[in-house]
């Protein structure tokens, strides 16, 4: 595996399966009386979040702590970044403090990649702009594999995954398209034309605008959040119209095959892209995804940091 995890597109199929298999073993730790392994004792993991996050930051923190690493949470508000410190100077500060891994979220696509050129430790991308969010894609793949009863070493061959909504602003969609395609799933995107990125033809997936036609052919439906905070123009006439055409309500769930599952990376806009009854239904894996996130992030931290120290 690479020393950093910047993009799901950097992973080989073998790497991806190794992460999922490792996560499967580490998931057991959650059921033990002592939810801790000594593996990363003495290692320091810095959570560097330039953007708001609840589940990703907490998930990385829990994962690092279950592996006995020391965790430093770097909150940008109240730090020197607020005084205008550059990304590079922040990076050099972390370097001087001996960070073995930096988990970074940034509003600029490509920030983790830049950071990886300045740091000797590992850089893990926890979401950069509208580019990538690789650990989210890994935990989604892990959740799908578990729900469809596939075990160690098995990929997602033959499963049809439909990703619906704001693909344009979604780092989750991009990472998922690459990873799920790598693992053998057939990926379809459904979105209004205004919410699809320009170079969508290069992505290894099909694209359509009609959700009702796609649902009967989906084993997995992944709903994306409408990212109001990144929208600086009118991408659709009204929230209500979007919800009518692209929201997942009970009637639409009825068109899904019997064992199909509904996913959402969170945070949800209940009543916009997903109806509350659907989010709380047994088909929904939304809570599972959060629990699986800790196992998958433990696997990533272990595989990047658990072995031989990074060559100096």
């Amino acid at each position, binding site marked *: *595996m*690479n*020393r950093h995890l910047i993009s799901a597109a950097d992973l080989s199929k073998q790497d991806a399966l*190794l992460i999922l*298999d*490792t996560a499967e*073993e*580490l998931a*057991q730790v959650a059921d*033990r*009386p*002592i939810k*801790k*392994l*000594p*593996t990363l004792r003495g290692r320091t993991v810095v959570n560097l979040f330039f953007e708001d996050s609840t589940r990703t930051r907490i998930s990385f923190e829990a994962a690092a702590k279950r*592996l006995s690493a020391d965790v430093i949470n770097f909150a940008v508000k109240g730090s020197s970044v607020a005084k205008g410190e550059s990304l590079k100077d922040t990076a050099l500060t972390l370097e001087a403090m001996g960070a073995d891994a930096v988990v970074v979220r940034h509003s600029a696509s490509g920030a983790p990649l830049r950071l990886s050129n300045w740091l000797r430790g590992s850089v893990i991308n926890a979401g950069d702009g509208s580019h990538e969010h690789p650990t989210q894609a890994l935990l989604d793949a892990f959740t799908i594999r578990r729900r469809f009863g596939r075990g160690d070493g098995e990929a997602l061959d033959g499963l049809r995954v439909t990703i619906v909504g704001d693909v344009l602003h979604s780092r989750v969609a991009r990472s998922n398209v690459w990873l799920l395609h790598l693992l053998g799933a057939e990926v379809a995107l459904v979105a209004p034309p205004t919410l699809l990125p320009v170079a969508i033809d290069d992505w290894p997936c099909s694209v359509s605008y009609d959700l009702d036609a796609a649902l009967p052919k989906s084993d997995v439906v992944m709903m994306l959040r409408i990212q109001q905070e990144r929208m600086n123009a009118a991408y659709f006439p009204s929230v209500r119209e979007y919800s009518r055409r692209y929201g997942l309500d009970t009637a639409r769930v009825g068109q899904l095959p019997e064992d199909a599952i509904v996913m959402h990376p969170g945070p949800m806009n209940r009543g916009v892209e997903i109806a509350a009854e659907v989010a709380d239904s047994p088909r929904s894996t939304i809570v599972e995804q959060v629990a699986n996130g800790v196992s998958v992030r433990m696997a990533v931290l*272990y*595989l*990047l*940091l*658990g*072995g*031989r*120290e*990074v*060559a100096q």
Partner: protein
Amino acid sequence: MAHAAHPAGGKPGTPGDSVTVPGQAGGAPAPGPQAHPKTVLEAAEINRALTRIAHEIIERTHGAEHVVLLGIPTRGVPLAERMAARITGVEGRQVPHGSLDITMYRDDLRLRPARRLGPTEVPAEGIDGKTVVLVDDVLYSGRTVRAALDALNDLGRPLAVQLAVLVDRGHRELPIRADYVGKNLPTSQAEVVRVLLTETDGEDAVLLEPVGTEPRPRRGGVTGRRR
């Protein structure tokens, strides 16, 4: 131990390929003690050793009533399973058995790239108040067993922990000993003990061979390479 071969069984600082064979340092022209793999235990002997260990476990634990057998992956797991079947054959009662992966507890994790994890399956009844018998194929430095004791500590509080191994090859680096031994095998550190089991390798045998002749381990070795 995650490998069949035990060139430096979890021994940091012993590079497997630069070992001087004792008694050979003078540049003697003669080949090493064993130029070819030598079979030290055949299938029937392994069978008898396991049967004897099973009987010893029953005797020492007064009927193996509260015993849990935990094999250390890879080859400790089928050995634990076979011992459990033999105890059941004698006592007529099911003996819980499972596996205990020790990778996350190793003391040499930082010396190699991250390894693939083995399975940990603890029987549903747990280990609290039970006599846990750890089962491994080869006892060498003792570091694997130390790691296993740490791992057990996080799973519960057994009444007692015992150790059963198919081969004890000596060269301990920690104050650890086995309670049940299939065969005591005096070895040099320049030799490799390789255990083959039907479940994992298609045949039963224990081989002794000089270091450097072993093929690459099938699993557990090189994962997580760094670029």
